[in-house]
């Protein structure tokens, strides 16, 4: 019987398994803004163009992110799906990750366009 996918932190106090498509997300050290890892290794505050990983590649990307401590805080793997050219949140933490990527739902002034 194949081993179960590795157990991973999926943000906050949540745990999950390394199954399916993942993006690496974290908070920027200097201001705490939510950021996402791109293919070229840079971090951006939009999820749309984030790099998507699976399996061991996702774990390797996360491991690399954890050493970038002067750039980001608390990286973890989030569930995503690719919708055409855009990456969007998915899975059990869909609402949490939608709010992280778009901003609080309570006032449009607080949306991510304000912080970019």
């Amino acid at each position, binding site marked *: 019987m194949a081993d179960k996918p590795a157990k991973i932190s999926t943000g*906050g*106090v949540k745990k999950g398994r390394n199954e399916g498509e993942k993006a690496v997300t974290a908070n920027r*050290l200097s201001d705490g803004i939510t950021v996402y890892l791109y293919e070229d290794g840079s971090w951006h505050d939009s999820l749309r163009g984030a790099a998507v990983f699976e399996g061991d590649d996702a774990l390797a990307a996360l491991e690399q992110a954890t050493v970038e*401590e*002067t750039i980001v805080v608390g990286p973890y793997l989030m569930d995503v799906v690719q919708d055409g050219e855009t990456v969007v949140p998915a899975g059990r933490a869909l*609402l949490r990750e939608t709010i992280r990527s778009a901003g609080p739902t309570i006032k449009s002034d607080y949306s991510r366009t304000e912080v970019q």
Partner: protein
Amino acid sequence: MYRYDEFDAKIVADRVAQFRGQVARRVEGDITEDEFKPLRLMNGVYLQLHAYMLRVAIPYGTLNAAQLRKLAFIARTYDKNFGHITTRQNIQFNWPALTDIPDILDHLAEVEMHAIQTSGNCIRNVTSDQFAGAGADELEDPRPWCEIIRQWSTFHPEFSFLPRKFKIAVTAAPQDRAAVRVHDIGLHMKKNADGETGFEVLVGGGLGRTPYIGQVIREFLPKDQLLSYLEAILRVYNSLGRRDNIYKARIKILVNELGAEAFRDMVEAEWAVMDKARIDLPGDEIERIHAYFAAPDFENDPDTGDFDSAQGADKGFARWVRHNVRAHKQKGYASVTLSLKPTTMAPGDITSEQMELVADIAQTHCFDEVRTTHEQNLVLPHVRKADLYAIYQKLAPYGLGSSNAGLVSDIIACPGLDYCNLANTRSIPLAQRIQKRFEDLDRQENIGELKIKISGCINACGHHHVGHIGILGVDKKGEEFYQVTLGGSAAEDASIGEIVGRGLSTDEVVDAIESLISFYLDRRSDGERFVDTYRRLGPDPFKEALYVA
């Protein structure tokens, strides 16, 4: 109010300089996040979903105009132009950059404020009755004792690394407005048979995932022995509180595992052998602290001006007086609750412009004093009745004139999943939907006192366990559901609400709350509040009403 002496000022300035260095070292990579995290938490800095959050201490909820203006400046300069009043009477900023926080702390220090001990496993901000020093029903002003506890607990070396955070509340009125029964230590000032005033001491109350009502371990503690007795309690907790399991580390778990009697025996034994004279303050020091809280220079029976006639002419003012204005111990004066619960803002949020308006009013009409409340509102404690109508007219254009204190729309809600890294569900949008459903003020007034409290996770920051109607957000396979509890209270009749059944979906929950309230209106007897009717009839008929919706 208390004013810093040279030692206070130096301690705070040194702490800001120290934190500035720690932030610089973190940004440069000289210390890791694991090393930095406990340091930032000791300075009130959390990392939430979208940004850092800075929690600023407001000791026992007392502010002056200069402090409120400084908070407005910080909100405008470093945040998104608002702050959020918390259930520990503090204020939080939701959007500061880490690299700006040392400057923010410098600004705070200019007005004798800081963020020390607003996080971490230490003694947190001492909370109290928002009407302290003003309420017609209090035995004496509890704030000098809060200040004495604040000074004793700040940087207390023995209690800087407790098993878990530790919360103390003090009240001096029969009506408990400080929720002392759901605190790690609750102090309720009472008179003994000889007519002396002292403290009833309760321990082991708390909310979170394991809620308990505090238990009395001493019915009467002489005031001048307060600190040594607190120190005895903390020593027993510090020695025996669990450090192996974060969920069992609060004093409430220890007290309830040992039993209140056994815990009390340990405290009394510790207290008996203590060098009390080393710990308890001498009489002249107690008097010195009390002098900071001398009553303002009230006029003797001032004319009440248009107070009565304006209520006849302006029904909105009359309604505001009925719900937001309270009796004051001084004839001709009143205390005013400024509701931070309009439907247009998150419960407890206040903009810079609102802070500045309240600061102006406080300076002109309220002896330079403002209070924050654990129900996430503000209070002007000492206002001449003659000034009330003019104040009311100034508030409305700024969205501060809501006449809903204590009513169904005066909801406590945690920040929830819109901000919080721990939350399962959103709280603020649900609070706003309930406020909207019940926005008709005649309807609210007919319903009467009803405390709705909403938490977005089991940590219970929205105090749902002690809501007359409590609402707990739960995550069911990635969807928001809300579990309802009924019959809770944080007041002198404290009780933990009972879970009445399955969780309700986002679409169901507001209708279900309305159904509960309709049932209450149908079945209440004269003078009964929602919680009274619930206690009389029991959970079953309410459960039926809840799930009929």
